[in-house]
């Protein structure tokens, strides 16, 4: 372990080239993650060395004791007793140190894993949605859970086996050399054979393993998709076909698994065979030496032979393990690489970065340095433990927002080669109700992404009360909005926990009042445990409409100055919807709202209706003026009644 330089080195992260960091750097970053534990690791190394030395010394003592037991009336009892007592002492000492080593290794491994996971999760909170939207949830979860776990396994194994293995090899080598250099030489020359054998097998089974994991992934994806929609499978009577498709993959998996498992399991018997050859060679040369040197002053004793045999066994064992450990460790490093790659993803532009923004290019520059800085923080670790945006739960700032929202020549697209929204300008006065209608794919949902600053605009600016939203903290901006999306999301927890998501300190009376206004109280009351009923993430037995009512109640509890409703009432019947809108109208007096809907009853009473098509606003007006104009909106509207 190198030491001396401080944990926080602001220069190193920024200057390091990303490519270098990805390849050779993983090991370096693993070491960096281990740095807070360097004293414990040093202790572990010292103790392991002590354990190995002690474990190796005991056979020497036993050998010496046996040398004092030559034959009838040729036993030196005093010497034997003394040696046995020493063995007992050493055995207890070894066991104690052994235990300490495992405790330390456990502690370091699991603490490092905890640190890495915490840091990765924290980084996740800062990753922009433009990144998260492109990843599948499953792959990120597997990075944070499975990869970190594999990394832990490899690390622990590396600690416990790789290190002690190497020390054991070196130690036994030393002892063997001290007993009989000739035999030691035989062992040294022959044992690496097991490495060669292991390597040969590993390189030939690698392709089987790849195929196995590919087929396994294919099966998991199939099961995920088909079992995930089992109700549809049943509805179409596809059970038999589904099983047949499953069996086809299952059969292929059986074949590749058998190959992969069988061929990889050859390593152990083969290396063991090499070991028995080594053992036989030691017996042969050792015994012959005993015979030839018998009676001379440099006699090779039976005790020494038994010690050498024990060493030969102990010397070859780590070779078997190390060949396994090395693959495991490589796998662990690969997993660590994936986690670090996640942590290297540039984070969102920090808040207030744009305060001195004079031109567009400044924004770009700011963005890249921020990415570099985040990566550096991810490296060093200490920085990321400081709370994220200390003010983010502080909603006091929102009360000052009046709710004037203007979009000024806004351009944006997800795929920079295809334009989506271009030069869009909209102004919403405080308290206005803005409805956005238009055909699928016209950019309605994208507009919400921009208003909430889930994505930053490519050109132009969005202003709230005249301030560019990039000059506000995201927390301050978002605290001004209440958002209900078409894809209702409820978390696993009680109904009450879900309702108070935006206002954890709400009283029971406030919660109930919000639910009454959202017309959710009557059905919540009928649930098995009322407000304390536990629901799973997908909402369990609640209907789609009931889930939407809960999401609306969740917003009504917070009373933000601005509202975004994206098809928020699409599964709620119109009768309830109108009652909810009345409640909204009362509670939202003077609050600006953006409503995306295609149901006319939802948008009819909006102050301004924006008709969007292909990322542009093609018509603006209210219901009556747009009908009178006889354009796109009028067509849409009339189609509802033409039968």
């Amino acid at each position: 372990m190198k030491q001396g330089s401080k944990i926080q080195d602001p220069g190193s992260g920024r200057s390091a080239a990303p490519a270098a960091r990805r390849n050779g750097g993983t090991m370096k970053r693993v070491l960096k993650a281990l740095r807070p534990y360097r004293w414990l690791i040093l202790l572990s190394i010292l103790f392991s060395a002590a354990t190995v030395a002690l474990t190796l010394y005991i056979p020497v003592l036993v050998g010496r004791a046996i040398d004092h037991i030559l034959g009838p009336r040729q036993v030196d009892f005093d010497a034997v007793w003394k040696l046995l007592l020493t063995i007992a002492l050493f055995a207890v000492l070894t066991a104690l140190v052994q235990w300490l080593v495992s405790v330390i290794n456990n502690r370091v491994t699991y603490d490092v894993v905890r640190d890495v996971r915490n840091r990765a999760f924290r980084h996740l909170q800062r990753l922009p949605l433009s990144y998260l939207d492109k990843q599948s949830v499953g792959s990120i979860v597997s990075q944070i859970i499975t990869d970190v776990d594999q990394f832990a396994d490899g690390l622990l194994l590396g600690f416990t086996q790789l290190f002690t293995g190497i020390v054991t090899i070196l130690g036994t080598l030393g002892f063997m050399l001290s007993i009989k250099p000739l035999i030691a030489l035989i062992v040294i020359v022959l044992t690496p054979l097991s490495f060669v054998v292991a390597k040969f097998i590993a390189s030939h089974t690698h392709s089987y393993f790849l195929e196995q994991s590919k087929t396994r992934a294919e099966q998991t994806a199939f099961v995920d998709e088909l079992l995930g929609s089992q109700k549809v499978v049943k509805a179409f009577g596809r059970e038999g076909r589904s099983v047949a498709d499953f069996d086809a993959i299952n059969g292929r998996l059986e074949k590749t698994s058998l190959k992969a498992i069988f061929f990889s399991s050859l390593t152990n018997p083969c290396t063991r065979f090499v070991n028995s050859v080594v053992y036989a060679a030691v017996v042969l040369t050792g015994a012959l030496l005993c015979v030839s040197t018998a009676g001379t002053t440099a006699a090779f004793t039976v005790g020494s032979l038994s010690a050498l045999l024990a060493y030969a066994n102990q010397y070859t064992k780590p070779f078997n393990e190390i060949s396994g450990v090395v693959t495991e460790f490589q796998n662990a490093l690969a997993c660590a690489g994936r986690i670090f790659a996640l942590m290297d993803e540039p984070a969102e532009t920090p808040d207030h970065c744009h305060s001195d923004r004079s031109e567009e290019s400044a924004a770009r520059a700011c963005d890249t340095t921020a990415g570099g800085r985040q990566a550096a923080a991810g490296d060093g670790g200490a920085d990321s433990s400081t709370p994220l945006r200390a003010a983010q739960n502080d909603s006091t700032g929102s009360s000052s927002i009046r709710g004037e929202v203007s979009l000024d020549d806004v351009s944006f697209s997800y795929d920079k080669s295809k334009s989506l929204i271009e030069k869009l300008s909209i102004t919403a006065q405080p308290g206005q109700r803005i409805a956005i209608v238009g055909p699928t794919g016209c950019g309605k949902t994208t507009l919400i992404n921009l208003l909430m600053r889930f994505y930053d605009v490519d050109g132009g600016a969005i202003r709230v009360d005249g301030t560019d939203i990039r000059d506000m903290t995201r927390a301050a901006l978002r605290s001004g909005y209440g958002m209900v999306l078409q894809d209702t999301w409820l978390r696993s927890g009680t109904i009450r926990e879900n309702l108070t998501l935006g206002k954890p300190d709400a009283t029971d009376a406030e919660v109930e009042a919000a639910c009454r206004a959202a017309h959710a109280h009557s059905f919540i009351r009928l649930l098995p445990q009322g407000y304390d009923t536990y629901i799973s993430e997908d909402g369990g037995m609640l209907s789609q409409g009931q889930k939407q009512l809960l999401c609306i109640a969740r917003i009504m509890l917070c009373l933000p100055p601005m509202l975004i409703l994206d098809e928020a009432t699409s599964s709620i019947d119109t009768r309830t919807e109108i009652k909810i809108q009345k409640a909204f109208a009362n509670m939202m007096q003077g609050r600006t709202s953006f409503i995306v809907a295609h149901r006319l009853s939802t948008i009819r009473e909006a102050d301004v209706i924006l008709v969007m098509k292909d990322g542009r606003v093609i018509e603006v007006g209210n219901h009556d003026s747009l009908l009178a104009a006889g354009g796109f909106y009028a067509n849409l509207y009339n189609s509802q009644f033409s039968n």
Partner: protein
Amino acid sequence: MRKLFSYLKPYRKECVLGPLLKLAEATLELFVPLIVAAVIDRGIGGSDNGYIMRMSLLLAGLGLLGLVFSVTAQYFSARAAVGFVTRLRHALYAQVQRFPYATLDRIGIPTLITRMSSDMNQVQTGLNLTLRLLLRSPFVVFGAMVMAFTIDTTAALWFVAAIPVLALVVFGVMLLTMPMYKRVQERLDKVLAITRENLNGVRVLRAFRKEEAECRSFETQNEVLTAAQQRVGRVSSLMNPLTYIIVNLAVILLIRTGAIRVNAGILTQGAVVALYNYMSQILVELIKLANLIINITKSLACGKRIQNILDISDEERVHAELPGGDPALRVEFDHAALRYQGAAGEALEQVTLRVRPGQVIGVIGGTGSGKSSFVNLIPRFYEATSGRVLVDGIDVRAMEPAALRQKIGVVPQKAVLFKGTIRENLLWGAPGRDGALPSALPVSDEALMEAVRAAQALEVVAAKGGLDGEIEQFGRNLSGGQRQRLTIARALVRKPEILILDDSSSALDFATDAALRKALRALDYSPTIFFVAQRTSAVRHADQIVVLDEGKLVGLGTHEQLLETCPVYREIHESQFRKEAAV
């Protein structure tokens, strides 16, 4: 676990031969100390170089024989483990296909997926290791003891004394850690759940500025997990040091006894070395056993989780003896009621309705009024908890579920498509009995396009480049409205007698929705249509409209009749047409 092991039956031969060959290999290893003792006593003692060479060759020969035994054993155990799990996976998958909706609701799909994947893998690893190693370690331990007896009975008594103490330590640690490992697994599940939820709800969580709170709750759960891991680590790392002390203590006593008996001329020096070697072998085996036991403990837990699903006997049984009804009616609800498992009240109360072939039935009502529950009774997705539902005069429970569903085209509320081409997705709806591979009756592209046209999905198909256009998993590359139209087309492909649309045009704009309704009514095979809708405009031309309110049937009739007689319907209607009424 008996049911689980029944899938091992075809591999009986492998399960016996594998461990047996492993034991043979272990037996060979037990001869090694004996040979070494002979080398010391006869070879070195008698200065017989020829003997030493022969014995060394024998050692290498034993190694070769051991290699052959163990490779064969590996093959048998790999075959048994892989084959067993393949069968088990099939059994579990087929079992899930039999479950009714209610059972799927109760168990939950995500856990079925984990059991299908990671639990299965753990069982495979566990079985493979068990077949290879489990018998070996105790065999070597007891074998070493038996061999010790052949050398010297008195000295061997130390083996007899040491083994129970060692067993006590091994099983003690195992019993202590088993529940601890389970707890670690549960806590890991929690950390996983938080991460998943955080990603799924990222927009809502960020809108509520929950990032810091999420980090804190993640860190709390993570800390709990770490603590559990360290606790189990501390206990399980006791095993090796304790066994080390015990074995060395036994070695000391062994040498002490050996010294006395060699002095008395009862034992030779070589015999003492052999006894010592046997004791060392026990130590090596115990270290291997410790790792194996952790693995087996985990596998047993996973096996139990799979067994639990296999034990569920719920399936859609056919009760052919149930009485029929009027065969002239396409669908009949006879005092049908539904209460979901664990629910506080009935989702649907005593509904009676008679539907003739070709009729269009509108189903309307408030949020949570039981509309979906109502239509779900027709294809027997759920069974009426009282009363009955009949199709073509036969109780749905008296029909083969596949035959029943063959008559019905369903468009579920949640529009789900599958990875594959548009054609493959549409062919899901092709006629043909369950299990027919592939769809028994070929469906021409014209027939598919006909369904696509009626479902107003022509532009969707065109946008994806025709019927061969690729659809991603879950239909991710389509918008909500596009998905809905394709699911409608899918249901039309079989030209069903009964078509059920469960609020399946919610993502369509009015123009498309209206055109869809018109096209469906114009279908030449005039199916009986059940329209679940939010808007009265969607149902006003229906032959009968079912009005539901909190699970009760509160109105039944035509649009005009209901406007007169049903206050709930009138209210719904007025909520949508207020302004026009005033004009």
